[in-house]
């Protein structure tokens, strides 16, 4: 029996294995760190992420490699997303550090270990070629994130948010598992590439399959946070400690995008006409509700939460435009526009939440819109950075957000959904209002508090680089667009 057994090739999974080993090491090392600042833990975590990125880069072959009995896949899209993911988490940790060190109840090494484990989960999701691997990664990420949200035990808001996130997340996982079981029932396999093959050969029970698809889409929609599976987003973004919000708002979006590609494109591409229509409904609802509800917010974290909902809706527009009347010519272009949108959104969103962390200090959260009043008087430089972020999110030309929207709209128009493009632009216009309101508050209102910005030099430097990246990628978007396109071409 064992003679058929093939020892799995560990190289494609080397980044994951490295991060796992290091997470264990850091967990133990941190037990013996006594300092409040946790400098060692922080440094080790960052080194791990850098090492992980380096390994990802070095082991990248550009070929599609399967391992662990085809449960795990390493392709260019996975490598690229993992690199972006590592980079994002590194930046997030730099921003988060000052905030965490200032708050006794959060100054624990567990934060860093949980971040690493969540990152591991996301990487597993990104590389999943099996429905169970995908589920495993998803749960690994989710459980770590639940714990992170609740890390500040003394805050009732945070624990409430964690509770909601956990219960709703469990519900969504249940839906996803149900969908997985239906797909298994219809096709007789859990391996994503084989699901695709089974569908291509026909002879599957379409009813069960489509029902399974609905549940899978629901699970994906929960992770992305699109209407009507978005309800957790505002409460969790608002309730969680800001560094955790920053983390949730950035890295998991990349993993969720990979989930969309793996499940819907790699696995169920045959059903594209069906899931495109489902996603279209979700996308339009998200853009509408996200943008309209954001206007009514006074808390900037909550506002950005609704903004995230609308952005995810916009991103889905690209996924919607892949196949038109059985013609998949534009599919790669459409999906790569979505990927570009996602990456651009993550870069911008990291800078946006980073600004909140920059203004926060011990005993002061800076998460109200009013806290941004008169920022220009306190620090013209960071006011301009925040303006860049807001304008980019609003999709105003020459920032990266504009090109992201532009690319997606181009795909939508190419697919012939003119009305959808017009609706998207209209909702973006509504959305521009609340982004510009932040700009107005910063430049035209008097500051409520004149305290100088206390953040550390590394945060300031990195945040400036981040803001400039948003601006520069708007001027030079081609490289990133090209990367996304190549990654998808070589992986699908």
């Amino acid at each position, binding site marked *: 029996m064992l003679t058929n057994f093939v020892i799995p090739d560990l190289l494609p999974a080397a980044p994951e294995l490295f991060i796992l080993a290091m997470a264990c090491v850091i967990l133990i090392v941190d037990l013996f760190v006594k300092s409040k600042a946790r400098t060692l833990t922080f440094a080790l975590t960052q080194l791990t992420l850098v090492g992980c990125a380096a390994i990802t880069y070095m082991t990248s072959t550009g070929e599609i490699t399967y391992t662990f009995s085809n449960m795990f896949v390493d392709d260019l899209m996975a490598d690229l997303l993992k690199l972006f993911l590592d980079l994002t988490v590194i930046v997030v940790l730099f921003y988060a550090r000052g905030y965490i060190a200032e708050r006794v109840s959060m100054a624990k090494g567990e934060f860093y270990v949980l971040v690493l484990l969540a990152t591991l989960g996301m990487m597993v999701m990104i590389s999943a070629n099996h429905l169970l691997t995908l589920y495993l990664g998803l749960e690994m990420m989710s459980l770590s994130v639940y714990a992170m949200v609740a890390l500040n035990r003394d805050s009732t808001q945070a624990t409430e948010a964690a*509770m*909601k996130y956990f*219960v*709703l997340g469990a*519900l*969504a996982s249940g*839906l996803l598992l149900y969908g997985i079981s239906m797909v298994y029932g219809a096709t007789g396999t859990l391996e994503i590439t084989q699901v695709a093959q089974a569908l291509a050969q026909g002879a599957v029970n*379409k*009813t069960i*399959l*489509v*029902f399974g*698809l*609905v*549940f899978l*889409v*629901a699970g994906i*929609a*929960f992770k992305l946070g699109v*209407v*009507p*599976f978005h*309800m*957790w987003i*505002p*409460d969790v973004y608002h309730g969680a400690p800001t560094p955790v919000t920053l983390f949730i708002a950035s890295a998991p979006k990349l993993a969720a995008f990979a989930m969309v590609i793996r499940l819907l494109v790699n696995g169920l591409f045959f059903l594209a006409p*069906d899931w495109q229509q*489902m996603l279209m*409904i979700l996308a339009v609802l998200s853009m509408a*509700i996200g943008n*309209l*509800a954001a*206007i*009514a917010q006074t808390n900037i974290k909550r506002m950005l939460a609704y903004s995230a909902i609308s952005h995810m809706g916009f991103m889905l527009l690209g996924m919607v435009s892949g196949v038109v009347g059985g013609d998949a010519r534009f599919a790669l272009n459409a999906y790569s526009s979505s990927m570009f949108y996602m990456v651009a959104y993550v870069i911008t969103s990291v800078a946006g939440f980073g600004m909140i962390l920059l203004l926060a200090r011990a005993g002061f959260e800076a998460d109200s819109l009013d806290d941004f009043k008169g920022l220009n008087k306190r620090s013209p430089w960071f006011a301009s950075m925040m303006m860049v972020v807001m304008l980019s999110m609003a999709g105003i030309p020459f920032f990266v957000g504009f*090109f992201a929207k*532009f690319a997606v709209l*181009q795909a939508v128009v190419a697919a012939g959904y003119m009305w959808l493009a017009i609706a998207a632009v209209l909702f973006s216009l*509504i959305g521009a209002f609340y982004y510009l309101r932040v700009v107005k508050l910063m430049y035209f209102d008097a500051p409520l508090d004149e305290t100088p910005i206390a953040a550390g030099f590394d945060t300031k430097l990195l945040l400036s680089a981040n803001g400039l990246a948003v601006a520069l990628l708007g*001027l*030079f*978007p*081609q490289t990133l667009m090209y990367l996304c396109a190549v990654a998808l071409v070589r992986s699908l």
Partner: protein
Amino acid sequence: MDMKSLYLLVPLAPLAGAIVAGLFCRVIPRWLAHTATILGVAVAFITSIVIFQDVLAGNSFNGTVYQWLASGEYKFEVGFLIDKLTVTMMLVVTSVSLMVHLYTIGYMQEDPGYNRFFSYISLFTFSMLMLVMSNNFMQLFFGWEAVGLVSYLLIGFWYTRPTAIFANMKAFLVNRVGDFGFILGIGLVLAHFGSLDYATVFAKAPELANKTINIWGSADWSLMTVACICLFIGAMGKSAQVPLHVWLPDSMEGPTPISALIHAATMVTAGIFMVARMSPLFELSDTALSFVLVIGATTALFMGFLGIIQNDIKRVVAYSTLSQLGYMTVALGASAYSVAIFHLMTHAFFKALLFLGAGSVIIGMHHDQDMRNMGGLRKYMPITWITSLIGSLALIGTPFFAGFYSKDSIIEAVALSNIAGAKYAYFAVMAGVFITAFYSFRMYFLVFHGEERFGKAHHDHHGDHEDEEPADDHHHGLAPGQKPHESPWVVTVPLIALAIPSVIIGYIAIEPMLFGDYFKGVIHVNEEAHPVMEALHHHFHGAVAMALHAVTTPVFWLAFSGVALSWFFYMKRPDIPAAIKARFSGIYTLLDNKYYFDKFNEVVFAGGARLLGRGLWKGGDVALIDGLLVNGSARLVGAIASVVRFFQSGYIYHYAFTMIIGVFVLLTLWFNRA
């Protein structure tokens, strides 16, 4: 370094300087601001010389540096077209800019906005270089708008003065009118040629020469004519041609160095450059060329008249600039593009010289700009005096000076032109010669010769421009008994450096530029239809012969009599001008009000716009937009937000319920299909 990086270095070096001086203008010391910017411009200048050598050796370049975005088949790119026309402009821009940078150290010494100023002029240099080096319409337009922006910023540089704010608003609005035409022209080009790339458009132009388009009704319009006139309207705004000239005299509210750099030597010539660049298009439409010719001739003559009655030293030079821009435009209209560029170049040097000379006088007079308070400055400011004299001689077209060669060529070109309006233009430029000589030397005599009128404790220069003259702290003037003295070396060195080309550049450049093959393959002239250059060549027998021959032409004697008359009026019998002023008060009032252009604009356009605005405000904004759309949509948004809030109750079972409803709806929808 390969050539492409060199090309990039030319605009980027001033940009780097501008960024250093601009972003850190509050923290860095003054010496760093001017060192950084001057270094940047000096690098650009030296690199331009290197590129000039390379281009002279026969190389040229037309390529994309960066593709900014592609939409369907349209590509929007940043690219360079380096040929002899470009490199000529690059040399003019960087050399004058370098001189002006140096000069600014002296001129702005006491100004609190020192660093800001340096940042602006470096930014201007960058924008202007991007404009001239462009190989496509989009970058041209971006450069066009960028120089407009910097010009706007600099006119309003002393932003606490209401007059400066008024002037920069005016410049801004008038230029919008021109730019509207310009962008319409670019739009037409994009729509019918399908590309914004010069080379592609020019290659396709002959096929479309006879194409007609429908604008409204059933009348057919020649595409070329409409497109060229639209483009030229852009040039009229930027190069201040009648009737869009009104902003340029007021732009003198800005500091003098930028009057020299932007409003005399470079930016205002962008329109001339643009038309010369578009010569393959303009050559295809005689109507457009006639239009250009008539507008240019009108500007050349009638703006000259206005120079006669000005008392502000800078305004005299400003009106002279307007008039000279008219000359260049006339040359364009006569299909003598190379002559226009030639005059552009000589004019850049001597006009910058005159402006900087005027600035030096202003420094000496402690920022008093009224010529009636000057006189006899020759003794006190010898370098300024001699260089200004050189500038004036060049301007009026004294043989062997730079201006002579270019201006005489223009006049001859017009004489040889046969398109509609050429007769009128010939008359205008001939009369213009006399006028130019008269007002130039009126200024010269009033400032440098005659009675010393400064240092009297009157300062009652509430003359004719009470509300337009600089009002506050910059209007000191000399205290009683105080004597003016020569300006520091940073001011006089640029004067000397600019005086040299003002004398010799025409002599050197006329033969290769006009009659050699310098512009071959760059400027396209339809030799059959417009044989002006060929005829001109026929009359040309070398630079020296041309100058010697000049004595026998009416042009020379017109200029001479202009100088003589001004000497008689302002040195010999100063009572005569006053008598004339009294006798012909009607004409004087007409000129003093600048032909009522400003009044007309204020009443008709500004007043009309205000009326329309009020109507739209009351009817459209307050009632419709505020009442229905803004408040209505705000109420709608509020209502929707409250619905969303109702669902976002905070109860976990509501949330779960929403999710499950979502799944049910999707299931129901797809159950029907499956």
